């Protein structure tokens, strides 16, 4: 008696090879499965705050820093890094630039209506007629980023490789401004606009944006570790590299031009001092938080966005940020002298966690 032939026409060897190949591929897939790092269990600073923000922001992050300032005092927590580790704060840099604008206005150096062309060599380019107020409230008509081949290529290259998509110097920034049109709808969030605003404020004071920021904003507040980084070579051991939401290490965002819009780094200790000065209203240029214009269904000051009655009936003034490997949020409830700062070394928004933290600590009380 012979065995019944198998119904399949493929020999057993074929299926073994297929199974082995699939298993090897599965192992490779598991090894390279996209996803962020997980926060380590250790934290420095306030253990209760660390546990709270770990829950609110989620554990899938490389590192996380948190600052809470209330009338009762200041609490900080740093997870996955040290309190003096410098994180990229992304577009929270614009909030610093807003303070700088308010301070420059107060000094009489510029006015909200000062035209960009009075401070930067823009010739008869359309951008020369844009005012500082328009730049600070995203109503200039400038695009989010320069619309040219170089920017498109560098953005694509960044997306593929996680390289720094910026890096322009001031001359390149001015060249971009000269060729920019103003036909973008008012209210379009513009990195280019804030790059120009920072450069213009530096020019008005006869110095660079970085030096002016140190002299008038970070220096007086004692923020010794807070500064824009113009070149990757300036980065040191304390400068953390963040990761994308998918877990790829992202290059640091550096460049002279990007500084005022998103190139500043800071650490937990400095951000705590910053938050304290925001909470008690003593930060230089604090008038920047006052609303100046409508911004969609919100209001906007010099960079700072106001959500009316957002935290248990009280106004929330905030800014957020994101770079290739970081996400950030700073929220102030001026009525109660409360500030929250969150910065994540994984590019996954912390906005909702920041708002939730404000609500949880009873920021409106």
């Amino acid at each position, binding site marked *: 008696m012979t065995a019944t032939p198998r119904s399949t026409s493929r020999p057993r060897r*074929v299926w073994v*090879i*297929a199974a*082995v*190949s*699939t*298993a*090897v*591929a*599965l192992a*490779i*897939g*598991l090894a*390279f*499965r*996209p*996803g*962020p790092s997980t926060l380590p269990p250790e934290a420095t600073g306030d253990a209760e705050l660390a546990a709270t923000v770990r829950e609110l922001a989620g554990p*899938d992050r490389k590192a996380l820093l948190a600052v809470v300032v209330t009338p009762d005092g200041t609490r900080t927590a740093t997870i996955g890094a040290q309190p003096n580790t410098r994180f990229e704060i992304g577009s929270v840099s614009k909030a610093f630039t807003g303070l700088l604008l308010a301070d420059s206005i107060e000094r009489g150096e510029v006015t909200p209506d000062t035209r960009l062309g009075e401070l930067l060599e823009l010739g008869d380019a359309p951008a020369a007629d844009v005012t500082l107020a328009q730049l600070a409230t995203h109503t200039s008509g400038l695009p989010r980023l320069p619309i040219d081949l170089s920017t498109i290529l560098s953005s694509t290259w960044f*997306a*593929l*490789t*996680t390289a720094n998509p910026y890096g322009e110097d001031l001359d390149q920034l001015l060249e971009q401004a000269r060729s920019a049109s103003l036909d973008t709808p008012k209210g379009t969030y513009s990195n280019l606009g804030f790059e120009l605003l920072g450069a213009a404020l530096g020019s008005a004071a006869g110095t660079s944006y970085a030096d002016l920021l140190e002299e008038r904003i970070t220096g007086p507040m004692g923020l010794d570790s807070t500064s824009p980084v113009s070149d990757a070579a300036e980065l040191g051991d304390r400068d953390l590299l963040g990761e*994308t*939401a*998918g*877990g*790829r290490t992202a290059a640091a965002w550096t460049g002279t031009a990007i500084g005022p819009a998103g190139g500043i780094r800071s650490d937990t200790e400095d951000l705590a001092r910053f938050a304290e000065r925001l909470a008690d209203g003593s930060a230089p240029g604090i008038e920047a938080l006052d609303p100046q214009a409508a911004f969609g269904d919100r209001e906007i000051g010099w960079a700072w966005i106001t959500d009316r009655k957002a935290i248990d009936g009280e106004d929330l003034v905030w800014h957020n940020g994101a770079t290739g490997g970081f996400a950030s949020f700073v929220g102030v409830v001026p009525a109660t002298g409360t500030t929250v700062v969150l910065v994540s070394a994984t590019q996954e928004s912390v906005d909702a966690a920041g708002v939730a933290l404000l609500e949880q600590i009873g920021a409106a009380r």
Partner: protein
Amino acid sequence: MIEILIPAVVALVVAWVLALQVVHAWSTGRWAATERYRLVVDAVDSIVILALVRALAAPVGVWSWAWVLAVAIVGFGLAGAALRWNTLPWHAPKPKRTLDEHGATVETAVEPRTRGRQVLSGIYAVVGAAIVALCW
């Protein structure tokens, strides 16, 4: 809406590319690959699209496990390609069809361009490997 539409379109494209690879490699019918060049193109396309999705879309959560499953499917397809490899020529051009004076179809064999397909396959694989390296 756009938050749903984009992942859905990406998922469909990936599914289509992977399905082509597996069917070309494993099918014995009309969808079966008839030349090695097709196997190379399918394999490179599958690997590159998964690398691009990992880099650009950063699938996390459930989607990250779908990505792992997709990698396993590519492995299954590669096994089929490897098993079929020795039985296929580099190039299997379709015969040229013409009509004779009576209107009947006449098929004429076309000389395969083996060397050209080998070079093309090599270039395709190198470019694919470069894209994958960039995405890592």
